[in-house]
């Protein structure tokens, strides 16, 4: 039941911010307020009694709470960074609509409803992000997203129909009577595994299906990119990786060839994705290809067909989505600071934007991690579950590709400053110049001798000197002075928010918010809560 308020608030918020998107200031205030309220509703999501709906159930879980909180918190920070640079009216609606869809998908019991929910979330968020204002590249990107989500859900539905994820616990079956899990027909299991791998590969953008992410980065408003390129694929991944060990785990011995094929695809994605990220010149594309590269890890988690890898993947996917969101926020601030995202034009950027450098270094730490850290351990657990020997070495090397790509950005920043960088505004805060004769305090009262006691001017002076009067004066001063100060300090403010984003990514990487416990506590029951025929 605790999920219902979140769904209601997020859906209503989507409606409100979409209606108000053409009003710059009102839309901004409404968007921030709606996301904060949705964030508050997400915080109270907890594993409680499922709400029965149509023979199924809707329920919250600790993992779902962490997913929603991180999605909304990081998405809000990216929106603020973007708002300090430009106005992207479609992004808040996409974030809220996408988060509502993720809540629905991960809260519904059973694999088919969860897949349908994930597809509906993708369709809604894509339409909200790309539908308006209309531009040829956006309409094409939207059509491409609709095609991808629909094809994925149909493949997933058929796969879940052939090998239902919860068949092993249907009352009356061998598993339910304690006779152990029932392996699926080998040919059917092979077909289903390959189909689900195809879906996962497409949603994350694994090679050779990587064009989707790159084109999305080109066409989507940058502040809507986290929900479309990171969080929604993460939701698809959580659904599929939750289903796979239950449905196909008993058949894993007979699926050697298919699993090897998926591991090969994953290794190709890890290595080629890293190479692609290293040769890109646009920072947006660097980030896009780091997403592509990490699709390899998701595929390895699927190939493992192992509950331990599933639990690790549930934790890793949160680190993945949060760090990519932070990287996207960083690219928005970078682009706004220098007016371009081309690395060849922004050599030496660290001199002008050291705070962005600190934030990028923190994101690098969160992405790579170190032994003992959640980000590191979860990734390594996935790699070890699916590979061994030379393949493990290759996977390990490839999984560090994102870190290498970020190091390259830092190396470029340490070079000799280009003309564009030299002419850019620095990160030091500045105070607005005050016109001569202007005052920032309350209106100066008339001199004491010019008005008699009890006259209106005396009463005004007395009112101004009282506490409420002083507060009113202060508010007026802030209102008058804040806007020029904000205009002057957009660069340091953006850098500050990006540092907050990097801090959030770092907290996620160290396993704050109870991520590890939430991932383990879910067990095989996420998203499937009960014995439902048909998944």
């Amino acid at each position, binding site marked *: 039941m605790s999920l219902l308020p979140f769904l209601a608030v997020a859906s209503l918020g989507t409606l409100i911010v979409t209606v108000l998107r053409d009003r710059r200031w009102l839309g901004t205030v409404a968007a921030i307020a709606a996301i904060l309220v949705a964030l508050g509703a997400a915080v109270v999501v907890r594993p409680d009694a499922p709400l029965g*709906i*149509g*023979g*199924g*159930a809707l329920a919250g879980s600790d993992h779902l709470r962490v997913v929603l909180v991180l999605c909304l918190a990081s998405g809000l920070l990216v929106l603020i960074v973007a708002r300090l640079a*430009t*106005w*992207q*009216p*479609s992004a808040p609606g996409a974030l809220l609509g996408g988060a509502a869809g993720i809540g629905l998908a991960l809260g*519904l*019991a*059973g694999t*088919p*409803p969860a897949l*349908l*929910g994930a*597809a*509906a979330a993708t*369709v*809604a968020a*894509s*339409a909200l992000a790309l*539908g*308006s*204002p*209309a*531009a*040829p*590249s*956006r*309409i*094409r*990107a*939207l*059509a*491409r997203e*609709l*095609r991808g989500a*629909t*094809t994925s*859900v*149909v*493949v997933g*539905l*058929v796969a*879940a*129909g*052939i090998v*239902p994820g919860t068949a092993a616990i249907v009352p009356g079956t061998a598993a339910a009577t304690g006779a152990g899990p029932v392996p699926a*027909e080998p040919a059917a299991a092979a077909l289903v595994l390959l189909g689900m791998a195809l879906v996962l590969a497409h949603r994350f953008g694994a090679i050779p299906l990587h064009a989707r992410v790159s084109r999305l980065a*080109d*066409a*989507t*408003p940058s502040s809507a990119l986290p929900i479309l390129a990171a969080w929604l694929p993460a939701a698809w991944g959580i659904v599929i990786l939750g289903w796979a060990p239950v449905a196909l785990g008993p058949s894993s011995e007979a699926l050697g060839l298919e699993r090897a094929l998926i591991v090969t695809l994953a290794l190709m994605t890890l290595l080629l994705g890293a190479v692609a990220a290293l040769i890109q010149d646009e920072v947006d594309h660097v980030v896009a290809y780091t997403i592509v590269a990490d699709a390899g890890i998701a595929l390895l988690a699927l190939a493992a067909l192992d509950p331990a890898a599933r639990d690790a993947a549930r934790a890793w996917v949160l680190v993945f989505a949060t760090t990519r969101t932070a990287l996207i926020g960083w690219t928005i601030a970078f682009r706004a600071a220098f007016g371009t995202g081309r690395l060849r034009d922004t050599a030496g950027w660290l001199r002008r934007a050291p705070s962005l450098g600190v934030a990028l270094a923190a994101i690098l730490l969160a992405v790579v991690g170190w032994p003992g850290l959640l980000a590191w351990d979860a990734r390594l657990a996935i790699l070890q579950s699916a590979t061994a020997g030379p393949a493990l070495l290759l996977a390990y090397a490839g999984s560090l590709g994102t870190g290498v790509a970020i190091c390259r950005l830092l190396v470029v920043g340490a070079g000799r400053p280009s003309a564009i960088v030299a002419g850019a505004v620095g990160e030091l805060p500045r105070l607005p110049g005050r016109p001569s004769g202007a005052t920032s305090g309350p209106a100066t009262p008339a001199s004491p001798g010019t008005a008699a006691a009890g006259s209106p001017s005396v009463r005004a002076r007395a009112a101004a000197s009282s506490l409420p009067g002083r507060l009113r004066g202060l508010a007026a001063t802030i209102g008058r002075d804040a806007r020029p100060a904000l205009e002057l300090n957009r660069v340091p403010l953006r850098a500050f928010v990006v540092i907050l984003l990097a801090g959030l990514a770092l907290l996620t990487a160290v396993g704050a918010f109870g991520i590890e416990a939430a991932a383990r506590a879910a067990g095989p029951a996420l998203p499937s809560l009960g014995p*439902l*025929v*048909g*998944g």
Partner: protein
Amino acid sequence: MTPLLLVAGALVGLGAAVATGARDARTASLGLVGLLVMAPFVADPLPAPLPLAFGVVAGILAGFLVYVAARRAPDRAPPTLGLPATIGAAAAGFAAGIGATAVTLPRLGPDAALAAGLAALAVAIGPIAIARDAFRLGSALIVLVASGFLVLTALAGTPPPLTGIAAAILVVALAAAVAVVGGGAAALGGTSGPDGPDRRAATSRARSDHR
């Protein structure tokens, strides 16, 4: 397999063929309505009255949204195949689905659902694989979702009502997105789909909302 199920499955196949093969966009949207309204009835046992009604109403709503998009769709984007060829493809898919009983495919649902699902799949694949027009692509995607749901019904039996409700929500969301794509395409003077002939010309960044 009862004759009524067979008739319902055949109507679904016909609706899918009209939705993807009709030259006039409005006729295509009417075919889509027929497909979406009949699809929930191709199940044995039938879903409970409330989920059945939900599916029918969602189908009508989705069809209406696509009809709105169809009114603005340009006439210069005919379907890849003509209507007779599309009906032929749907009939072939339907026959293949009925014939699947001969190979003892293990499943819990009716043969008519598999036949209708394969008929819809057969006609949807073409416009999706080569999507030259946004409206045609959108219609085919809705047909594809319906076909996936029918195949699921054929394999796993009548799905729980929650699955039907979720599928209906997806169909309505997809239809709304199709209306958005269609409206955007019309506003831009009939932009083609992702695989259209002018796709290279529109690769520039969409920064119209940047200031």
